[in-house]
Each structure stands twice: as C-alpha cells, then as structure tokens.
C-alpha cells in the first residue's frame, strides 16, 4: 500500500516525535509513505481566516502536485487534513473557486482536476491496514493501561469528506458526535479504552496565541474528564492537539490550581508500544509531561 505523504509543518518541527513514531510503525503494516516533493504550507492557521482564497490556492498547489501520482494523499495532521479536504470540496463544488484556483495554479505551471482524495493516517491504519493486523502486531501486554482517545475537533467535522468518506457515505464512516474508530484501535492494541465525554471537544489550539486563558480553560476540561475517568494517558492524532494538551499542561495547573499529570501521546506511539518498541525509538522521552510511574510499570509488565 503506497501513498503520497503530506507531512505538514508540525511533524517536521515541533512534533517530530510524531514523525519518528510513524516511521517506526508503518513499515510493519505494509504502508509505504512517499513524501510529496516540494510540498508547502497547507494553508491552515491564520491564512484560512484572513484570506480564504489565498489559503485554498496554497493548499491546491499541494493537491496539484500530488495528482500526477494517482494515489491517495495521507497526512498525519488534522489541520492539514481539514484544510486540504476543504480545498478539495470547494474546488469541486464551486465553479468560481475552481476557476480562480485554476488561474493561480497555471501561474505556477500547474493544473488540478479535483480527483485527489486526502486522508488522515488514522483512516489509513484503521481502514486499509485494518484492526486485525494491529492486533496481530501487538506483542506487549497493555491491558492495564487506561487510554483516553482524543479525536479533537477537526477530523470529525461532517461538512467535509470525513475519514474514509467515499461516494456512498459523504459524511465519513464515523459519527461526528461520538466517534469510536480510535476506541476500537486502542482495544486492538490490547490497551483499555477509557470512555469519557470530551473526546471531540476543542483543545483551544488556535486560541493559544491570542486568548491563552480561554484556550487553557478548554484544555482543563479535556484533561479533567480524562483524569476523572481513570485515564493513564491521552492518545491523540493531531500535532496541534498534542502540543496544547502536553506542553501547556503545567500552565493549566498553575492557572487553575489543578495537578494534572497525564502524558499525551500520539496514537502511533501507542501502536509502537504495543508492538514492543522501546519508548526511545518512538520519541516518547521527549514529551513535556513525562511518562508517569504507573505507566512505566505497565510498560515494563510489572
């Protein structure tokens, strides 16, 4: 299974541990990711709210370059996933957008016909690789590890092609209000999935630079709910969510007087752990909130 890989800026910088864990686990699943040459910013962050068309144009450049490979584009970042998909949708649904983007791409010597499918790496692992395969790869005993799946708010939005969305189901294969695909994945790794309410609530990532207190409040809600339901760690699929919940956790504690100590890891790191890989190979030692003692004990099989 070969895909065109669009990493996005996060995994190449702040979230390089995500990239390391992806590199560590996907070959065993038979997934080959070929990085798109000369890719650029997906157009998320400030672009989308300041100049939507500019954002689409930037985004469309990536799609246009990817089209010639006739493969699905895979990204590990929920923001990239959302923006690339949104661009695709607008490109296909609105002739005037298509026209403008066509002109913009032409100026760069490119063209796009709108036929590229953009998928999140979670979708690929769940639907193309399959949970059975994950279970087959899992060798470390994780059943005592309570894992809270955190989907974040971007991947579940039903107005774009949801994960694995095809012709039959434009809204994707999971319920935007109550997604469960990562729950199933956690169970497939052998770990115990924690049920809690905040799994699709916004982490505040886009507010952290401007309305920090609001963003931290949002983080607090998610962390509290996970903790109250006995989670040892939170598993996420988005570098922005991970950073907010992980790096800002001490700030949440100091602002609200809480004592959260919950590692926030990537789902690929969890899969790596299940496969018996060492935390170091998966970049786990570079988390801001270090792995707690109970977690380490579970990993050591104590």
């Amino acid at each position, binding site marked *: 299974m070969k895909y065109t890989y669009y990493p996005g800026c996060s995994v190449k910088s702040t979230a390089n541990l995500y990239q390391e864990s992806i590199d560590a686990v996907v070959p065993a699943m038979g997934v080959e990711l070929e990085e798109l040459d000369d890719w650029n910013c997906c157009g998320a962050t400030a672009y989308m709210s300041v100049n939507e068309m500019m954002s689409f144009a930037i985004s469309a450049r990536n799609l246009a370059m990817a089209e010639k490979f006739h493969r699905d584009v895979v990204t590990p970042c929920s923001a990239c996933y959302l923006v690339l998909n949104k661009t695709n949708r607008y490109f296909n649904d609105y002739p005037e957008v298509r026209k403008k983007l066509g002109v913009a791409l032409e100026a760069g010597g490119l063209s796009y016909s709108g036929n590229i499918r953009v998928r999140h790496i979670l979708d690929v692992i769940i639907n193309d690789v399959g949970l059975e395969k994950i279970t087959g790869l899992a060798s470390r005993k994780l059943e005592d590890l309570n894992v809270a799946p955190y989907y974040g708010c971007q991947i579940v939005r039903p107005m774009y092609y949801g994960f694995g969305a095809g012709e039959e189901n434009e809204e994707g294969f999971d319920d935007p*209000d109550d997604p469960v695909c990562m729950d199933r994945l956690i169970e497939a790794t052998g770990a115990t999935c924690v049920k809690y309410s*905040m799994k699709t609530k916004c982490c505040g990532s886009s507010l952290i630079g401007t309305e920090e207190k609001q963003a931290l*409040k949002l983080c607090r809600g998610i962390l*509290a709910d996970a903790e109250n339901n006995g989670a040892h760690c939170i598993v996420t699929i988005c570098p922005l969510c991970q950073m907010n919940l992980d790096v800002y956790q001490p700030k949440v504690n100091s602002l609200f007087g809480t004592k959260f100590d919950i590692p926030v890891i990537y789902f690929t790191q969890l899969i790596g752990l299940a496969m018996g890989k060492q935390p170091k190979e998966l970049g786990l030692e570079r988390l801001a909130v270090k792995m707690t003692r109970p977690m380490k004990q579970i990993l050591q099989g104590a």
Partner: protein
Amino acid sequence: MSERIGVYVCHCGTNIAGRVDIDEVVEFAKGLDAVTLVREYKFMCSDPGQSLIQKDIEDGLINRVVVASCSPLMHEKTFRNVCTRGGLNEYLFTMANIREQCSWVHVDVERTTDKAKGLIEAAVRRTRLQEPLTKREVPINPRTLVIGGGIAGIQAALDLAEAGKKVVLVEKEPSIGGHMAKFDKTFPTLDCSACILTPKMVSVGQHENIELMSWSEVEDIGGYVGNFNVTVRKKTRYVDADLCNGCGACWEKCPGTRVPRKGNVHEKLSIGPTTSIYIPFMQAVPAIPVIDADTCIRFKNGKCGICAEVCERNAINYDMEDELIEFEVGSIIIATGFQTFDPTPIKRYGYGKLDNVLTAIEFEIMNCASGSTGGNIRMADGSEPKSIGIVHCVGSRDKHYHEYCSRVCCMYALKYSHLIKEKIDAEVYEFYIDLRCFGKGYEEFYDRLLGEDVRFVRGKVAEITEVPIEEAEKGKLVVEVEDTLVGKVRRIPLDMVVLCTGLEAHESLADIAGLCSVSIGKDGFIIEKHPKLGPVATTTDGVFIAGACQSPKDIPDTVAQASAASSAVLSMITREKIEIESATASVDEDKCSGCKICNSLCPYLAIKYDEEKGVSVVNEALCKGCGTCAAGCPSNAISAKHFEDRQIFAEIEGILSA
C-alpha cells in the same frame, strides 16, 4: 346518435379567470369537432353552475359533457352526479384540469391559456370516444375491523358498536389502552387518565357487538371495499382465556421477572406486574395474563410451573400455540397510533449514557400512580431531584430526524412542569424553540404555568454533559443552550433532564398500510384521501384512519377523528351496498389467444385462465382498474374501460394540437 358535446368553462372566481383568458378559451372550444355548446360560469361547482349542465342535458342539447375547471380529484364526483341527475351516463363526462395543473402553477397568461386549450381539446377528443359504463354494486358486510386498541381504536369501536354494528378490534399488546393507559394526568385539564379511559376499556371488553382480539396481529388482508378477507394471528398467551378469571394469583406468585431485578430506579421503571406472567397494568382489558416466554423460567429451563400450580381454574397451558383466524369485514379502520422517537442517535443529549436523562414516556411512567415509583419523581439513585430540565423538540422540528412538529410535546412538557411543581420542591426549566399552545384551554394552561415559577428558556439545547467546568456543575447534568432571548450561551446545571421525544409513525404502520393498500407519506404517516376534506378516508375505498397513524395528535383530536372515522363507516354500512369501480379491464375473447402474459400482472389475482376456452378472463369484482394488464396485453384483447387505447390516443392528439 351523433356526439354532441357541451363544454363548460369555469372561472373559479379569479382562480382560473385570473390567469386564463376565458373568452379566448370559449371561442376555441366552440370550434372543436362535435362541440355543440360552450358555456362559461363563475363557479361551475355551485348549484346554479350544476343546474346549467343538468338543464342542457335534460333539454337534449348535449349528450356528452366536458367541464374545464379544477382537478378531477376535487370535483369529478360532483359533475358525474350532475350527469346522472340529468339522465346521462356519468362516464360520458370528462374534466379538464385547468386550475391545479394550469392556472395555479403558471404565470404567463398567454401560455397558460394555450395550455388550457390543449387540455380542453384533449378532453373533448377523448370524450367523443368514451362509452357509457354500467355501475356495479356490491353488498357491504356490516362488520368492521378496527386495527389498534388505543384511545382511537377504542372510541371508533364503541361508536360503531353503540350503533348496533359488529366490530372486531385487534390489538397487538395483551391489553387495549395504548399509550393513554400509561399516562397519569392529561393536559390541559389534568383529568386522571385512568379515570376517563378505564370505563371505555371496560365497555369495549363487555360490549356484545365488539369482538376483542388482544395479543393479536393482522397478518393478511384481501378483497375489496365491502368484502375484505382478514387473517389475524392470535399470539399464544399460554393462558386459556375461557378459563382464566383474572384473579391474579399467578403473577403474584411468579418468580420470574421481565424487568431487571438489579439496576437503578430508572432501569426498573414499569407499570403493572413485573413478573414473567403478567398483565400490562392493573386495569387491563382483558384482565387475562400473558406469559413472557423470553423471561419465564419454565420456558428457559423447564424448572418452574408455579403459575400452573396456583391457578385454581387450570387455565395455564404451556403447550398453547399461535392461532390463525380468518374472517370477513366490510370496512377497516386503521388506528395503530404512534411510537415515541428514540433519542439514542442524538449523542449530544447523552440518552442511554447519562443517568437521569429520561425520555418523556419514561417520565410519564414515573409519574403514573400505579408505576414502579408510585408516582414519585426520583433520580436513578432513588433521591428526589432538586432541579429538572425539560428539553422540547427532541427528534421533532429537526431535519436530521423528523421535520414535522409532534404537536403534543409543548403541552405535555407544560404538564410535566405542573406535576413536578405539584409533587416536589424543584426548580424547573423548559427549553423550547417555540411554545405551540393552540388547542382549547391550552394557552390558558401555559399562562397558568407562567405563574408557577417555571423558568422558560428559549433555545435549542446544544448538549447535555456530565463534565463540569465550574464547581457548581460537579455531579450535575449540565445543559448547554443558547438563550436566544438573552443572546447568550448558558450552562445550566440540573439533576434530571426529560427529553420531549416526538411522535413518529409506528414501526408496524408500513406493513399495515401495505396490507390495506394505502400510501405512506414521506413523514412515515398514512396519507389521507384529502388533507382538508377527506381526513379520515384513504385512497383505498373502505379503509379509514383514526388517530396518530395519520399524523401526531393529542387525545381530543384523536377521539374526534375516531368518531369521524366510525361515522364514515356507518354511513357506508347504512347504504348496504356500495358502488365499485366500473372502469375495469375486460377481455375480448375473440382476440385473446391465451398467451398468459397478463395473468401474472394482476396484483389482485383478478385474471384467471379459462382452460376450456383457452382464454384469460377478468373477474371484474376483483379488478381495481389499474390497466396494467391492458398495457401488457400483446394482442389488444384486454381493454381498460374508460382508459382504452383509442381514448388515450385521442387525448394525446388533442393535448398536442392546440
């Protein structure tokens, strides 16, 4: 005798005349072949309008009639009667629909007028070729089948029985009573539901004209108006109804249980005995218990038999089986009622996941004096709630679920507020989109509630969550809602939330509708014959509807419709005979070669193959005149009367000529 057609053009006030140039149409019609007379009138359907036509027929001026006015679905019958009164066979008449499908839907006067001309020419050409058909009458079986024993079915059955007509009332549950039997109080008068319903149930059970088949389901319906053949499956009760006297010894001693023994208050909500042998509630009619084979210990492992031991009348019989009963009726009233919307798919509301989020029907049962909480309002842990939120429009007025308004929720929600205030000292919030209090005494009831310290928040609830943000929210359900009157998003911590789940068509309705050949609308309810003028009849003669199988209804409207349905049935039965379709198919035996193509086309099995003659023959009593066989007949041996090939060809020529 040559054809002399009279064409009558209706203005319908300005409904037609406002868009169609009547003078031009009249002139045009005068020029058509075989038209000897053209008249126009303001309202052809009025008495003077009808008299015009009748007089022309009686005076011998015309021997065929075309009325260009509204839809035949509206007034075909009216004008057919005019023809009959004038002494003309009603099948020598045609309506040109220049209103519903012409003046009402088009804008340009010139083109609308042109279209009207085309429709009139089509009608004239077809009318020339029409043939008189003889009316056929069949006797009506005076017995009526009522499907569903809720308040609608009960009322309809009683009305008919009181008029001296026989009724078979089929109810799929062990007792009649329906949803109303689960209610404590009814809005807006707060009558005790049981007090007004029970006497009616008892009358049904005792009435000599009513044959009650509870714990039974309709399996098949054949035949046609006046002569339906019905097959009913009487499900086995494992209790011999002839021997049982409803003493109750069996359910008092039964060790099995249909309701979880463990579990919180809400999981154990029920009315009536919770045992495996049970009657659904204490006022059940008939008061004959049923064994729930899924939970009965005897059926699980054969190790029990207590009910049989304690029954002094030896009525328990574990070997009983379902029975199929066939009988004939002349008319059918569908009164299958509704089911409540299941809010589980609306994940945001947490139903099924969060304790203390209840549906309306669960809250009804909790309030019912004979229910498992004795009518006390309790949280799952058994304590009394200090604050309760009532969320309106759950599953109703929501494009994801049901677009329609369920009509009863606003009022029962207000009733809940009142009951809560009456029973406990709790804060009550009503979260509504609009309050629709349209019935008699409803607005007054709302007004009364405004004085009972109920808090009304106008806004659609976004989410119900157990995750606190503020200290005050800990251990509570938090309702997140935009208060549109204040213009702010609010988070309101509450102990209990009641979801006002809407009414939806019962899951069995589509099957019943199929058996009765009536149509289901896109909302899932039965389509009535006419939304205003035929609310109790259906598109199938002899099949009527009452209550919430047509649309969500409250009790007063349901009872009114039930009485209307029974009165429609009575007026039919009283005639003793009914005319049936004259425009049937018939086979020209000189042309039929017996190729057997048509035989499998008839859904009513009206076409039989006559082995002796080697031809197919239509049983016109069974034929409903759809014409499918005529279209399939390769040799033109079958003609669909009144829709013959040559008539439709003439119509095509006419419609395209102007």
